[in-house]
């Protein structure tokens, strides 16, 4: 009897004890996958890269504004092509009136660093996969790394143009031990790193992802060359910039979309056209934030009257129109920014179809960058002029916007190219950087470009203050957001904002 009881008790104990080997005692998370478990196959790397690209479309946690919105604000609010709408925020108005304080939310850089961190995660952990996955070759690994590093370079390039000196972080923040309070790195060092990353990407990245859509939304050899051209142009390395452009042009993989009736639909409504080099590919699942920004009763931005008056200009006599103006960049009924709203020149997207892509680079940009570089090299003005006229011809630019500069007149040509860029890339987040690049050349020899821009964008009773603020060149770059300074004592504020 006693034996039986002993057996029974031991059996019950066994039931209780053995069943307690439940998973809840396991420290591995149930609803996710840990890093140690993740980086095993090349498909994992691919998925992680897709994550990097996905982060361009918006904050995965949905707490921050999407990157494209920041890029629009950084490229346009300080320039002369937008006007405030009813929904404009005080922060945005302050930036327009050159009153940026350190508390201004436009100076948040988290959206960019988020993508940088994703890229860093790939560069940190992808090499470890090589030992685990026999199907992954070194070349293929390098191709993945090249994409991550090129994307990281592009992100740093935005930061360096907007903030100048920023912290340079090239390793991922994957655990609490990785949290670092980095000081700022000088713009030059960062630009060197950008060039280094791009050089690596240049020699390792794929020419194509074997899918036309992927090629427009992910980094290829041609994307890398285009970013290089832009970086070289920013750093006044004109021959290198021109060579990089030539590579893209000579590849004959890209062309200008013909300026006919379907031009707007092909390029801006559908996106991924033959002209595109890199786009943020919003779609039905991931809408952009432009609908609310540009067209509701609380719209924050409209096209400035200056855009139709002076940029595209109006032909009152013959009624000729710049293809890129009315019905493409601007809906002239109410000055809505049409590029991101239209299906055709007069049909608007419904709010649930607001997935116009954000254009990072187009083939037109390559041509215009080459023109700018050639003009600066000197003695090649005629080639530059031909490139600009190629763009003008496609865009049906009006005769009155043709300043007819002599190819030998470097300053006149520079103005002409800059003006054409305003038309071609209206509202594509490039205007401020274009003007700043031209203004800062040769130690701000063309500071007047900035003051002219101010006369068009700043209220007359603030104009003189704004001009004088710009005379401190530090003010041309955003401050470090006050929160970053609070959490990182090693950061030093831009001296203008101290």
């Amino acid at each position, binding site marked *: 009897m006693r034996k039986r009881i002993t057996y029974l008790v031991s059996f019950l104990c066994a039931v209780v004890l053995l069943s307690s080997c439940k998973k809840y005692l396991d420290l591995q998370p149930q609803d996710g996958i840990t890093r140690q478990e993740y980086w095993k196959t090349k498909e994992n790397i691919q998925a992680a890269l897709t994550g990097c690209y996905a982060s361009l479309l918006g904050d995965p946690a949905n707490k921050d504004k999407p990157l494209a919105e920041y890029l629009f604000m950084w490229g346009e609010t300080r320039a002369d092509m937008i006007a405030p709408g009813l929904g404009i925020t*005080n922060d945005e108005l*302050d930036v327009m*009136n050159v*009153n940026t*304080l350190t508390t201004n939310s436009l100076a948040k850089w988290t959206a960019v660093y988020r993508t940088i961190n994703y890229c860093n995660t790939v560069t940190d952990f992808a090499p470890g996969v090589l030992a685990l996955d026999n199907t992954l070759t070194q070349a293929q690994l390098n191709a993945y790394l090249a994409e991550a590093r090129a994307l990281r370079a592009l992100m740093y390039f935005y930061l360096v143009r907007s903030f100048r000196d920023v912290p340079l972080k090239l390793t991922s923040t994957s655990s609490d031990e990785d949290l670092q309070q980095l000081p700022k790195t000088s713009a030059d060092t960062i630009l060197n790193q950008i060039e280094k990353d791009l050089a690596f990407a240049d020699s390792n990245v794929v020419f194509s992802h074997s899918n036309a859509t992927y090629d427009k939304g992910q980094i290829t050899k041609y994307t890398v060359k285009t970013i290089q051209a832009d970086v070289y142009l920013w750093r006044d390395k004109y021959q290198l910039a021109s060579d990089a452009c030539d590579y893209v042009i000579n590849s004959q993989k890209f062309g200008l979309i013909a300026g006919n009736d379907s031009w707007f639909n092909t390029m801006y409504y559908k996106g991924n056209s033959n002209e595109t080099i890199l786009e943020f590919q919003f779609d039905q699942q991931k809408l952009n934030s432009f609908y609310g920004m540009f067209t509701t009763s609380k719209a924050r931005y409209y096209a400035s*009257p200056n855009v*139709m*008056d002076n940029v595209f200009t*109006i032909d*009152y006599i013959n*009624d000729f*129109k710049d293809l890129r103006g*009315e*019905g493409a960049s601007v809906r*002239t*009924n*109410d*000055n809505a920014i049409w590029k991101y709203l239209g299906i055709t020149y007069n049909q608007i997207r419904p709010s649930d179809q607001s997935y116009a892509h954000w254009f990072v680079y187009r083939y037109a940009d390559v041509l215009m960058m080459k023109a700018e570089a050639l003009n600066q090299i000197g003695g090649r003005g005629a080639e530059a002029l031909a490139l600009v006229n190629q763009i003008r011809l496609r865009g049906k630019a009006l005769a009155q916007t043709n300043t007819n500069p002599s190819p030998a007149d470097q300053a006149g040509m520079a103005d002409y190219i800059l003006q054409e860029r305003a038309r071609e890339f209206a509202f594509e987040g490039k205007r401020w950087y274009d003007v700043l690049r031209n203004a800062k050349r040769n130690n701000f020899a063309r500071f007047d470009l900035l*003051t*002219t821009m101010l*006369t068009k964008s700043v*209220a*007359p*009773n*603030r*104009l*003189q*203050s*704004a*001009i*004088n*603020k*710009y*005379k*401190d060149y*530090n*003010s041309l770059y955003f401050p470090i957001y006050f929160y970053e300074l609070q959490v990182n004592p090693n950061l030093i504020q831009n001296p*203008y904002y101290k």
Partner: protein
Amino acid sequence: MKNIQQVVKIAAVWLLMMTVLAGCKKQYLTLTTTEDVNIVDYLRKYPDQFSEYIKILDRTNISPFLNAYGTYTAFAPTNDAIKAYLVEIGKTSTDQLDTTTLKNLCRLHIIQDTISTPSFIDGKLYAPTMYGQFLVTGVSDEGVIIINRRAKVTKPNVLTGNGYVHVIDKVLVPATLTVAQLVEKNTRYSIFTQALKATGLYDSLNITNNPDTTLKWRTLIAESDSALNAGGIASYAALKAKYNNTGNPKNLNDSLYLYMSYHILPGIKYIADIVGQQSHKTMAPLEVVTVTIDGQKVLLNEAVFNDILEKGVPINRGLSDNSCSNGVLHEITGNIVLKIRSPYLVNFDFAVQPEILKLTSIYRKAGKSQAFNYGQLADVTWQNTTLQAVNYYCEGPTGTNNYWWDDGFGLNLRYGNSAANNWVEFKTPLLVKGKYEVWFMYRRANMGAYTQVSFDGVPTGVIVDFTQSLPSTSATDAALIAQGFKRYSFNNPNGNNIAQKAGTVTVTTTDRHILRLQAVRDNGSGVTQSVTLDFVQFVPLGTDPTRPVFARNGTIVP
């Protein structure tokens, strides 16, 4: 038993002591609602920077209220600033200054409002200091904010419990010279000063704290000797010879007196205030200067009169915005003169609003129309701001109506219906002062039978009926005029497009004015229908209103 009682007694004493002792514990309750310091406490935290300023604030008894709750903006000079100021005035310590002087000095540094740097403009702050004078803000060539062209803001926007502190590197000094004294002091303005003295205007510009507060501030736009020389006036004698027509420059009707008073604006107007409005009244009766902005330039009196462009005269920004104890002094680079202008016919097409002109896909394009939200047209306002109360439309050449340029302007106008719109106001083009007949060119429709027309807020006395057709198609022009009607269409004089007189108005100043259409009685039509107008004519009194007539293709047929 006794033992127990003793134990109880001792226990009771102990308990009592424990209670009492425990009750003596200090209770730490937070009695303040915030730990933010107020302005003076903030300054006290940094004696190395502000001890001198604190000393003055304490001595003048300003610190108690500046540390109390309220809304203030304090400009705090550092110790170095105060030392430099003492050297400037030849003193060694603030103790050598009397309390009143110090009090005034402090009051110049305090504004009873919270103003942070984004509100700073190229001119005076919107609120005066407690001393009564305004502070002028700006940005120096190095990109630093400067106050009164003197002190640099070294640490802006320190937010304290009761307002902002802006640290400055120089003491602000009240302006002591009057406008008259300042213009006299500067040798650039010798001719101008002589003329001010001769006309007696000098004295009126030399009064500080005028008991009549409407006359307290003055803005003088001075012309330098060189500007006058360039205008062909070499000396005061020449100026007098040119304008002094009555012999007595002090005569209020004398041209020299008027010339000089035309350079004085009532009120205190810095450049930033001048650019804020399109025109400003001057001290010359019923005369205004108009303002145009061209890039960075501020031009006075640029205007198109009778289709002729008169170039404006730029203000010399570098030498303007000089604060005085009773106003501000500006310099203009050329001559602004009063001009005798005679009224001329103005055809004010409602559709020619700057915003509509830019709608190239709409403006004068056959078959197009566009309704406007409140706020989209700068020069048109209306009562019901939720409505798109005005609508621009252009008819094709085959349309049956006969609008000038084929385009018209529809207004929602109805009395006594809250869903509709009660009135619409238009800003007219520049009208030269004089008397005009006002004629409305309209397309007869169902609405607007009882429309009162007001000019600058004064009703013309005629109720216009926009539902009326021509009283008689066979009547002569003169007979129609007598009834307050006329024909204006070249293409179809007796059609539905006709003109009705809305009375006579007196334009008192050469300026842009407000024309208002208001429904004063309901004529019971729908909410959405509209009064259909073509344009409005200001016909100088004494000219024939029947000519010219207007064609659909835009031609004006004399």
